[in-house]
Each structure stands twice: as structure tokens, then as C-alpha cells.
């Protein structure tokens, strides 16, 4: 008789880039990776590839950083222009 067991060949759950990383409005470098270098607009989830929770956290942190004067609004901080690319966007 075949024994009932859960699929042993299951893949581990897919994690997004920020899964497990604490998102803070203070680390502007991390937040600037999800912002356009030309307009400073925040990328959508289809570009960043984050899960719903993390995308919301990142958006709230970026808007907080804008208001508190940590991150520029209309462009990306030129210091962080050469950071590794996290979003799949083609310029």
C-alpha cells in the first residue's frame, strides 16, 4: 500500500531580495536601490520583484526618508549610482 507523505522533492519557498532584512528609513543606500536614478520615482513590484510586505515597507520607508530629509526626492543620490542592480529595469 503506498504511504501518504508530503512531496519530498518540494522546492524551498521562494524568497525575495529583502526577505529577512530589516528595512529602515535611515539606510538611504538600500532604499536608493529601488528608486529611479533619473526621476527619483519608486519602482513598482513588477520591477523590484519584492513580496507585498517588503514592497510596502520599502515604500513607506522611502516616503519617510523624503520627508525627514534623508533622501533626495527628484533624483537618486549620486553617491549611490554605482550600487549593484537589484531591479530588472532596462534603461
Amino acid at each position, binding site marked *: 500500500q503506498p504511504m501518504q507523505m508530503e512531496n519530498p522533492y518540494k522546492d524551498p519557498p521562494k524568497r525575495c531580495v529583502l526577505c529577512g532584512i530589516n528595512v529602515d528609513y535611515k539606510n538611504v543606500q538600500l532604499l536608493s536601490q529601488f528608486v529611479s536614478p533619473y526621476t527619483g520615482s519608486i519602482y513598482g513590484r513588477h520591477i523590484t520583484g519584492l513580496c507585498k510586505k517588503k514592497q510596502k515597507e520599502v515604500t513607506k520607508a522611502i516616503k519617510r526618508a523624503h520627508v525627514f530629509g534623508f533622501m533626495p*526626492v527628484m533624483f537618486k543620490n549620486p553617491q549611490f549610482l554605482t550600487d549593484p542592480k537589484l531591479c530588472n529595469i532596462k534603461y
Partner: protein
Amino acid sequence: KPETAAVLKRTVEALMEKGAIVRKLENLGERSLPYKISKHKERHRRGGYFLIDLEAPPSIVSSMMDHLGRDIDVIRRAFIKHPVTKAEECSGII
């Protein structure tokens, strides 16, 4: 620099008077602001960032925002709740 020390001292004293318990005072450095901020009839380009960790009843918030708004040396003021750090249970995309 003595001016920044005086500003910090004033704010912390005002906070303690209203009954807040100050836990930590961090200096996040002095850097040029990401955009020019005009406050109190002046266009500011550089500023010092400070983070005060405190425990206080929520009734203090509005009076402190008033107090800090009247202070000329404070460019931008804000109160935030402590972020609840619970990020270890992120189970990935379903």
C-alpha cells in the same frame, strides 16, 4: 558646535520637563541636506541629524512639535513610533 550642544540640551530638558524618559541620543552625523530647506526665513544646505530614543505618553507629541517649531535652530522635526522588529519570520513568497 556649542550651538548644537545648546539645542540638544534645550530639547532634552524640555522633554524631561514634560515627563519623557530619554533612553538614548544618537548623532547620525552632519551632512549636506538632500535638498535645500527653507525654515525660519533661511535657506539651509547643511544640517546635523540627531535621533532621540525616548519613552513618553502620546499627549506630549503635539506640545513638543509646537516647542520644536518655535526653536530657530531646528530645521525639521518628527516623532516616530519604535519599529517592531519581527522580521525573522519572513516565510518567502507563497
